[in-house]
């Protein structure tokens, strides 16, 4: 057993730490405060990060990317999230789909899309699954309601597929250049059997993005509606096989789902690090009754708990990153993601608690970390996600 990082891993970690401290952290609160959810986004941050490799680092070397391993990716997500959780996610969201392209797209598709992705600092991606009436049903298709799940329809017409319907809460929907879209190609069976995944570029005729959602946390990160009105997608953009989409995506041991679990757990760790740092600084510098807060037992106990949870999370996150690199297929990523959600809630809460007692004001940074943390409840740790992991255990 060896917990040491390689020189390359350490270099990426330090590069990300520097970028987070010098570029992300200084503008984090200012971006968070912008009321209009569209205006929180800043292309300049994406461009700067892209030039350092943070947008493309998950693309394998053979396709012209950085080819970093999962441990490195995890370290970088954590460091970036320490600067700003939503900005870290804005970069790593692209890794998720880099993994998917590498794993399931044809050589011709890789050639067409990976090259463009690598060459353009403002090329970001997303995937559309959720619809207004299909959230949990997509993740945990009910056995007794075979028609539950997304409704977006794709019908073949010659060499093209015609897409009709809408998606909501889709990451990067309003800023992305390429999307993976799950659509029903056989409406008479359940989504597991009747779905095809399509590559949909931004300029697809009949596709547009709609309302940008105004989230209370992760303000920088964009989530929007996608609207398909007779959108025309070439047959060449079918990912894998027709009616094989969902299976292809979620059975893959590296991309899609499982990377998503590592992603949320690693990002949460960065937020916990930021909270610990903030709490410790406050406890050392703020005084009460003429003495630093740190001298109080109540404060010491809270700081202890924050660090205990954070370090436990770090161990868990590093383990699943390592397991990914060893191509081990376990339920640990899901469990780590759920744990990260519990940890981020409690750690950001305790940080707010340590900043509390200030009467009718609250530290804006502590408030932001709590709001970012709550996002996990709605993404990583609701009952559906936890049951889904449990079902993997029972398989």
């Amino acid at each position: 057993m060896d917990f040491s990082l390689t020189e390359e891993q350490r270099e990426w970690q330090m590069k990300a730490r520097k970028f987070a401290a010098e570029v992300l952290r200084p503008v984090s609160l200012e971006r968070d405060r912008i009321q209009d959810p569209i205006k929180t986004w800043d292309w300049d941050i994406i461009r700067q990060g892209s030039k350092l490799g943070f947008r493309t680092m998950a693309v394998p070397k053979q396709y012209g990317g950085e080819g970093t391993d999962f441990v490195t990716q995890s370290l970088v997500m954590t460091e970036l999230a320490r600067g700003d959780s939503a900005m870290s996610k804005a970069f790593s969201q692209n890794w998720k789909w880099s993994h998917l392209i590498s794993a399931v797209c044809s050589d011709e598709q890789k050639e067409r899309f990976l090259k463009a992705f690598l060459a353009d600092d403002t090329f970001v991606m997303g995937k559309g699954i959720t619809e207004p009436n299909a959230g949990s049903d997509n993740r945990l298709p009910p056995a007794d309601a075979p028609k539950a799940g997304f409704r977006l329809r794709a019908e073949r017409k010659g060499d093209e597929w015609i897409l009709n319907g809408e998606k909501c809460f889709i990451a990067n929907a309003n800023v992305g250049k390429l999307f993976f879209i799950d659509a029903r190609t056989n409406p008479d069976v359940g989504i597991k059997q009747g779905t095809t995944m399509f590559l949909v570029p931004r300029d697809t005729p009949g596709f547009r993005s709609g309302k940008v959602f105004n989230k209370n946390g992760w303000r920088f990160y964009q989530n929007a509606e996608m609207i398909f009105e007779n959108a025309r997608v070439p047959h060449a953009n079918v990912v894998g096989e027709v009616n094989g989409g969902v299976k292809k995506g979620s059975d893959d041991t590296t991309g899609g789902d499982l990377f998503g679990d590592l992603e949320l757990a690693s990002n949460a760790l960065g937020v916990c690090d930021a909270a610990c740092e903030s709490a410790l600084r406050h406890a050392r510098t703020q005084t009460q009754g003429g003495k630093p807060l740190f001298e109080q037992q109540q404060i010491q106990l809270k700081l202890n708990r924050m660090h205990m949870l954070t370090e436990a999370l770090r161990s868990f996150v590093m383990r699943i990153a390592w397991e990914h690199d060893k191509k081990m297929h376990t339920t640990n990523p899901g469990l780590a993601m759920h744990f990260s959600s519990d940890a981020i809630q409690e750690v950001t809460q305790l940080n707010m608690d340590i900043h509390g007692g200030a009467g009718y004001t609250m530290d804006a940074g502590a408030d932001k970390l709590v709001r970012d943390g709550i996002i996990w409840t709605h993404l990583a740790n609701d009952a559906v996600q936890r049951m889904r992991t449990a079902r993997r255990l029972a398989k």
Partner: protein
Amino acid sequence: MYNLHLTAEQLEIRDTVRDFVAQEIKPIALKSARLEAGDRRFPPEIFDKASQMGLRTLSLSEALGGAGVDNLTSCIVTEELAAGDVDFATVLAETSTLGHKLFDQAMTPEQRARFLPQFLADDRYHLAWADHEPDNEADSALGIHYHRPERTAVAVKTTATRQSNGDWVVNGIKNFVANAPLAKLIAVQVRTDPNASGANGVSTLLVTPGTPGLTIKEHDTASAWYHGTRGELVFKDCRIAAADLLGAEGASPIGTDVVGRGIPQFEALNLGIGRAAYEAAIDYAKLRIQGGRPIIEHQAIGTLLAEIAIKLDVARNTVWQAAWASDHPDVYADRSLSGLPLETVARVFTSEIVHQVALDAAECFGAMGVMRDMPMHKYVRDALICLHSGNGNSDAKLRIAEGVAGYRR
């Protein structure tokens, strides 16, 4: 004797207020545009309606023209209003509570004759009590002084100097004063004896907005970490007539509740936030279909809602117990209730569980639980504000601990 029956009058008031909330408050409170903009103000016409129902003068005695309800009834009303809109409820609770304290308990007949007719006649006549000063928290926290004798009392730095004709000249700053931006009468804590310390040498003066030398400014609502509306009062050589001294010089009649045994209005407001989240979650869980049936029919959501129901019910018991004890202080003396500071106990318990309730209720909504144009994120924020305002729960626990340890200062 143990009796949990509400009187016919209490039940009727509760039903009336619940109806008012459903008809008048919620349609405004739940508007997407208002939620998204973080706008916490309410149209004055709705305050007028509440006033005409008697909610502004709820605690004022019947003899003086109010409804004269007890503290328990007042807390029941506050919970109902807060389940509609906590900011609206906060403003009314403050004026109603102060109405009884100022007019029934503290004013002389002469002062009453001057101020009461306007208070009764004007639906927009609100009251404020200006106690808080900049940097108060550092002084008022127990913290490092837990179970140690060397504790400094809260310093009142605003001074009132007696003039030769008996008038007072006030200088100083009060901030985060509840209702200050709306109030037409404000009771101000001032130091009238510069040589005394702590609560000694502190008097209360009545002042009306517009008095020369007094400037009132509403605090920035965007970053407000409180409910209702609060403002800053700056006194610069502000002259207040001798006749406006409330109570005796050097012995303020306001703020004299036994620590931890006051009226649990704050706790009732907090409970109302939990109720709002709970009711929204139930409605949505019945409506939202996933997994082939309404989500309330799934064990995961059913259990979550049951846990929320349990928590709110137990919290309500702590609030009502504290309210009833504040109506009947002899229950402490005759050993019917424990000697704990029951309002503080209710505060800690209610704020902790309502925070959890709001988070759990929001979870039922999936992604909509964090959207700014939807109400759930606001309930979470409102619960956080209660959890982390004033000196906070950590300090409250130390106060309870001193009581448990039998420590007397």
